[in-house]
Each structure stands twice: as structure tokens, then as C-alpha cells.
């Protein structure tokens, strides 16, 4: 029996997460993920107007803003047989892509970087050497004066005794491997990225009214017809260009520079047996071509065709009344009404355990990059091959904490690069006199539909059943449910739990290494916790494109 360590709260994430690990011989021997909050949004949707659903589900998460709303309108549009106008497709793509740009930048700098970057050590850096380092690695080299200013600012901050968000961090931990100059460079970019992200979010406001929780989607299209003009497109384009420049010149170089000091993490934090991708970003009106291809991978094998009939959910180890594991549409789940006991030998989480063909697939950037690579997507293949070569690591290093963090950066580039085409498509539609943003439709008495989506944290699906023009049933299966789910009835662990096993731990009192892997999945716990209460055995066939 090893030593048990509990980390609660896990910070620099969305939501309330507890991680428990058992440590033996300085390595993680076993791990448990626990979602600590339950709200129950699906329960609220019953009996409501299907047109309203997207506003409710958008509030699943303010970090993953927009993405649930998008899946939701798609589900209703699928149920009601609505084909949205081309401009609506493009604007939705642009807002979705902007979400990826913003979300991944904030994740890297503000949620994940402090696992690798020792802010306090930056005080020891030589600003002249830091300027040299930035000249070598950064696409936006800065002067020694600039780094001196940043360092002075940090010194003032530390000597004030008011460390605020940096108080009680694991500074000086033996697992920090960056030289002081790299720490200072990253600290400077942490501050730059704070400014940049506020600007990047303005892309949402241009066509979406505001961010977080843009308010422009409706079943049938988008409402921002008055913003469909050359000036607004230009405004969006300028912010996109500035964001893209930051990604190309700062984010990716930082990612590569930091990764080069942590190559050993190319062999830690993998251990997953499968990867699942729904795909997204329709490139044409019929949605037959997606920028991100869908697929399923059993580790070591090729990409299989997606078959959503193979999804089941298991609640054996979650705080719901027990039921047989079944497809989301065939199961019945109810939260325990009363006090819930945390017991790693029994029930220990509000998150359910979704499975695909009995396996616990990882979802998210790594899964998407692997599927695109496996399907021979030239852009993904080139980027991945170049990255591996630059770091001097083999392809096995992809299946790791380092690979996951790198994949997030690479897809930021792929998606960001695609945005220019969509802006041009919008311009050419306007030039043709096509300003259509909405398709009229009528609510059927009875209907069913689903909307699939791949979002910053992974595969997301919403299913709806309509009766008498009202929501009879609504459910969604969310990326962080896939990644952070508990064990199932057979004792098979969820992806994050599996990834943590084998992680080296230098100091059990300061489990920095655990945070690295947990954060590499970019947890969103408010999204992950769900209740599904369907009364139907209907199973949907998913169109695989």
C-alpha cells in the first residue's frame, strides 16, 4: 500500500476537481478523478422551448463559451431538417475558430505554463542573456531593456510581499528544468498574453455581440446580419491577424523552447488505449468536407470510421442511482438525493464514465492531431513531423503529456490559418449580393436530432427529442466527461486516471508533476458533470463524412 495524496482544489482549470493519487517508490501507482459539483442543466431543459436550449447549455461553461450553444442549435436543426445558409455556416466557423485561438492561448499561458515555468526563478535571470535567447527562439525578439523592465516589475511584485496569484506556488521545485532566462522570457509572455487574449475575444463580439456567452446564434442561422459588411469583416480580420501573429511568433516558439527542456515528458502521461474525434469546421454547404476529420483510433491501429452507436455510459462509480451501462439514449440516470460519500473503492465523482466500444478514449487536441495524421492530412502530417524532428524525439513522444500540449499548439496554427479563407468566402458572398443569414422553418410536433462538434477540449455531442413542440429529452456528452470520467463497472479507469499512472513524483507534498498531466487535458469540470434522463431506446446513426 503506497502513500495517498489528495489535491483539492485543482486550480488553473474550470470548475471543481479533486485528484487523488497513490504513490509508491516515487511514482504514481493509482489515481482517481473526482468532479465535485453538480448543477443538472439537462433536468432544467425538460418541457422548455427547443429554441431556448442553446442559451441554457451555453452556461455549462464560460471558458468553453459558444461551443455548447453551437452543438445545441445543430441538434435542433438536425431534428427540424433545417439547412442553414452559407453565410451562417461561415460565421459560425469563424466564431468557433476564434474560440480555439483564444482558449488555447489562455490555456497555455495562464492555466498550464506555471507547471513548467518558475516565475520566482525569473528574478535571477540576466536580461542581456534573455534578450539573446529571445533572438534565438522567438519570432518577436525583445531587447534586454524590455526584459529588465519585466524583471523589475516582478521584483517589485515579489518584494511587496503581496504575491497574489503566485503565493504558495511550487517555486524552486526540483522538477522545474528551465534556465532562469527562459523563465523570464515566459513570464514576459504570460503578461503579453493577458493583453492579447482580451483583444482576441473581441472577434466573438464583432459577429456575436459579446464574449463570453455570445448572443447571435438562433436555430436556423445567425442574427448578426447588420455586421455582415466589409467594415466589420475588416475589424475581425485585423484582430485575427494580430492573434495569428502572436500564435506564430510567440506561442509556438515558446512551446518549442519550453518543450526542448522537458523532453523526458514525452514518455510520461500517455498510457491511453483509444482516441475519439467527431470532427468539425464544415468547408462547404453540404458539410461533406470538414477541416478536422472525424474518426476513432485504437492505439497502434489505423483510424476507424466513427460509430456513435458504440457509446455507453456507466455510473457504477459516480454519484447516481445504479443502472445498467447503456447507450446515452437507453439509460436512466438520477443523482443521489442526499449526502454523497467520497469513497475511491465505490462511488467517488459526479462525472459519469462514458465508453466507446467498451474503451475509454481520450478526446481533445491530441486525438484530433492523431486522427488527422492517420488519415493522411498533409498539413497535420507536415506540422507533426517538423515538430518531432525539431525536438529530436520519436513519434512515441506524441502519446504523452508533452505530446498533448504540443498538439494543442499545432491545431491552433491549423485552425488559425484556415480562418483567412472563410473571411474571403464571406467577402465574395457579399460581393455576389448574398447576405442571407437565416433559414425560415417551422417547429415539428415530434422530432429527434443530434449535433456533433469538436471543441477546444474534445468531442462534444448534444441529443434532443422534441414532443408537442417542447423538449421531451435533452442530453449531452462532453469532452471533460470523456477525459475525467471515473472507473467503470469492470474497473477500467478513465483517460486522465490512466495517464497519471507511472508519473514520477519528486516530493509528495508538492505534486507538481500531477498538475502537469492533469492540466495538459485542460479540464473543464462544470461541463463534465451531467445528468441524463432519457425514456427512449432510440439509437442514432451518425453521419460520418
Amino acid at each position, binding site marked *: 500500500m503506497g502513500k495517498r495524496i489528495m489535491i483539492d482544489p485543482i*486550480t488553473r482549470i474550470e470548475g*471543481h476537481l479533486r485528484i487523488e493519487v497513490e504513490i509508491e517508490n516515487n511514482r504514481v501507482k493509482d489515481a482517481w478523478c473526482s468532479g465535485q459539483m453538480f448543477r443538472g442543466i439537462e433536468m432544467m431543459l425538460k418541457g422548455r422551448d427547443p429554441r431556448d436550449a442553446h442559451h441554457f447549455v451555453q452556461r455549462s461553461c*464560460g471558458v468553453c463559451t459558444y461551443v455548447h450553444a453551437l452543438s445545441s442549435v445543430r441538434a435542433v436543426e438536425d431534428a427540424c431538417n433545417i439547412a442553414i445558409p452559407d453565410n451562417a455556416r461561415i460565421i459560425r466557423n469563424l466564431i468557433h475558430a476564434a474560440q480555439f485561438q483564444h482558449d488555447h492561448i489562455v490555456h497555455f499561458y495562464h492555466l498550464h505554463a506555471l507547471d513548467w515555468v518558475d516565475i520566482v526563478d525569473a528574478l535571477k535571470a540576466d536580461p542581456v542573456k534573455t534578450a539573446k535567447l529571445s533572438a534565438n527562439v522567438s519570432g518577436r525578439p525583445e531587447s534586454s531593456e524590455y526584459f529588465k523592465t519585466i524583471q523589475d516589475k516582478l521584483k517589485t511584485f515579489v518584494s*511587496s510581499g503581496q504575491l497574489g496569484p503566485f503565493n504558495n506556488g511550487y517555486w524552486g521545485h526540483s522538477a522545474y528544468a528551465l534556465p532562469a532566462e527562459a523563465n523570464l522570457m515566459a513570464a514576459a509572455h504570460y503578461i503579453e498574453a493577458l493583453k492579447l487574449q482580451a483583444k482576441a475575444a*473581441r472577434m466573438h463580439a464583432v459577429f456575436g455581440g459579446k464574449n463570453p456567452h455570445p448572443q447571435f446564434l438562433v436555430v436556423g442561422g445567425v442574427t448578426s*446580419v447588420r455586421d455582415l459588411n466589409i467594415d466589420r469583416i475588416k475589424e475581425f480580420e485585423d484582430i485575427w491577424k494580430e492573434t495569428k501573429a502572436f500564435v506564430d511568433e510567440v506561442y509556438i516558439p515558446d512551446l518549442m523552447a519550453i518543450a526542448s527542456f522537458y523532453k523526458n515528458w514525452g514518455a510520461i502521461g500517455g498510457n491511453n488505449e483509444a482516441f475519439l474525434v467527431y470532427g468539425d469546421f464544415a468547408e462547404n454547404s453540404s458539410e461533406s468536407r470538414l477541416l478536422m476529420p472525424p474518426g476513432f483510433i485504437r492505439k497502434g491501429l489505423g483510424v476507424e470510421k466513427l460509430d456513435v452507436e458504440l457509446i455507453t455510459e456507466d455510473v457504477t462509480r459516480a454519484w447516481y442511482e445504479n443502472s445498467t451501462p447503456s447507450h446515452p439514449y437507453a439509460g436512466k440516470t438520477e443523482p443521489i438525493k442526499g*449526502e454523497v460519500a467520497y469513497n475511491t473503492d465505490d462511488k467517488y465523482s459526479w462525472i459519469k464514465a462514458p465508453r466507446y466500444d467498451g474503451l475509454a478514449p481520450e478526446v481533445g487536441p491530441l486525438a484530433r492531431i492523431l486522427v488527422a495524421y492517420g488519415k493522411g492530412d498533409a498539413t497535420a502530417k507536415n506540422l507533426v513531423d517538423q515538430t518531432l524532428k525539431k525536438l529530436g524525439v520519436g513519434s512515441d513522444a506524441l502519446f504523452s503529456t508533452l505530446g498533448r500540449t504540443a498538439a494543442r499548439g499545432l491545431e491552433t496554427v491549423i485552425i488559425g490559418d484556415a480562418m483567412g479563407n472563410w473571411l474571403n468566402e464571406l467577402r465574395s458572398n457579399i460581393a455576389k449580393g448574398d447576405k442571407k443569414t437565416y433559414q425560415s422553418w417551422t417547429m415539428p410536433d415530434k422530432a429527434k436530432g443530434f449535433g456533433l462538434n469538436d471543441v477546444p477540449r474534445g468531442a462534444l455531442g448534444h441529443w434532443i427529442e422534441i414532443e408537442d413542440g417542447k423538449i421531451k429529452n435533452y442530453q449531452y456528452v462532453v469532452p471533460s466527461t470523456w477525459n475525467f470520467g471515473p472507473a467503470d463497472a469492470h474497473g477500467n479507469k478513465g483517460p486522465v486516471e490512466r495517464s497519471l499512472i507511472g508519473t514520477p513524483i519528486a516530493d509528495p507534498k508538492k505534486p507538481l508533476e500531477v498538475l502537469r498531466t492533469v492540466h495538459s487535458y485542460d479540464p473543464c469540470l*462544470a461541463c463534465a458533470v451531467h445528468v441524463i434522463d432519457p425514456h427512449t431506446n432510440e439509437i442514432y446513426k451518425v453521419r460520418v463524412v
Partner: protein
Amino acid sequence: MKETEEKSFYERLEGKGVSRRDFLKYCTVMTASMGLSASCVGQVASSIEKAASGTRPSVVWLHFGECTGCSEAFLRTPNVGAIILETISVEYHETIMAASGHQAEKSLEQAIKTHKGKFICVVEGSIATAYNGAYGKVGGRTFLEIANDVIPKAAVTIALGTCAAYGGIPSAAPNPGGYKGVKDAIGVATINISGCPPNPLNLLSTIVKYLNKETIELDELGRPLFAYAETVHDRCPRLKHFENDEFVEEFGSKEAELGYCLYHMGCKGPETYNNCPTAKFNDGTSFPIQAGHPCIGCSEPDFWDTMTPFYEEY
């Protein structure tokens, strides 16, 4: 501000990468959001300067039944870095703090001990009260326990967002977790910056006024009058169309393209108190009605139940 002080302040701002013009623009927007006249811009600027010198005021930020949208909204403040690193001291904030687990708990303990009776407590999210608060925990303690422990020790509590103010989405029917706003859950007075999410300018304006020891007048729902005295409808750029009986009857129509009134599409602007049309979001970029979407009433208590269906005329 004396001329030399002013000079050094702007020099420091330049060092932060903020030009004098940027800063004054920011203060102008903030002044407008507070409902103050343009002549008060200088006052606002000097209060920010005062807050930025000497010991930074401590803020403890609690996350309960929330989606983190309010934190995200706060992060959208232009140059938020200067606020969180140089203007206030964010002692505890789970989204951005480096420490986790025991070390995070230690940060919270230190903050409430060191700054007892002096810190500003910002609460995001509502509090689960059913089954003794079983549906929401941090570090093994229920939201309810944490709220009862921390909030009474604060100098002032700001309920940020409709969830913290009135219960918000977790409390929408059937409210399985028994979620309530801070005031209803633990019986303390709060300043309510409602909205889903609220405009960060309204939060910052409130903090600036508080630090300036100004009286913050509240409406009967606990919202600062400088931001919530008028309805969205009162200040709506489409008001003329309402008065002229010019309405959008379908999205994507000619009338929608002309920017007609969205009242028939379910706009809740006439019942919703907030300054969205004047403060706007994301550095003045837009707000929902400008994007052609009806207001959903997100700063009103129980809007998820009382303002729905969203697309039906009220």
C-alpha cells in the same frame, strides 16, 4: 494629482505598455459606464492611480456553482494584467492561482487571517443548499460552509453575476441542488453586479468607487444604480423604431437588416435593468441587440424561468 506625480504615473503606465491615450480612453469608458459625466474622467483616473500606489487592496475571489464565465468576463478587461498584478492583490482565485490543494487552502487561510475585515470578497456562482449543500464542494467543504466561513470576514462582498446575486442557472426550475444566491443562502448584504456574464466595467467601477470610499447607491435588488438604473430598452439604439412601430417579425428579414426593434422577437429589454447599450462589451465592440439578437433579460433575478421562452413576446 500633482504634476510630478502625474508624470511618474504615466511613465509607469508607459512601462506597462499602456499609453496615456489608452489609459484615458479606458477611464472615459469606465466613467461613462458609471453614469458619470465626462468631466469626471480625471477623478476616475486619479482614483485608479491612488489604488495603484502603496499596499494593493486584497481581493478574495470564491467560485461556487458557476461556469467561470464571470471570471472570463473580468479577464476581458483591456490590460487586465495591470489590474491583477499591480492595482489589486488577488489573494485567492482558483482560475488563475499557481497553488493547488493544500497550498491553495493555505493561501485562502492566510488571506482571511491577514486581511480580516479589510478584504473585498468577490463571489462567482450560487450556493447549493439542498442536503446540507451536498452538491458542491471545494477541498471537501461545501460551498455553504466556505461561504459562512469566509464572507462574514470580508469588508464588502460583491456578488458577481446573476448566479451569485440571485441563484442564476443552477437555480432554474427544478433546481435539483437547491442553489441560491449569496444573500439568500447565508443572509449577508451583497452588492449585486448581475448579468450572465456581467460587464466587467460594472465590477471595476464598483471596486473603484468602493476604494474611493464613495457611497454606492443600490436599487431594491442590490444593484448599483450607476449601472442598473435604466432598462436596456431606455437606452437602446433601436428605441426610435419601437416608437415608430417598426418591428422585426422574422430573423434574416429586410427589417432585421434595417435594424428594426426586436420586441416582437421576444426582446426583454423593456424589463431588464442594465447598461449594455451604453457600456457595451469587449472594449465597446458590440452588445447582443447590436448583433441583431433580442435581449434575454440576463441581469434580472430568475430570468431563466420568468423571461422564457426567450423568443416569445413578453
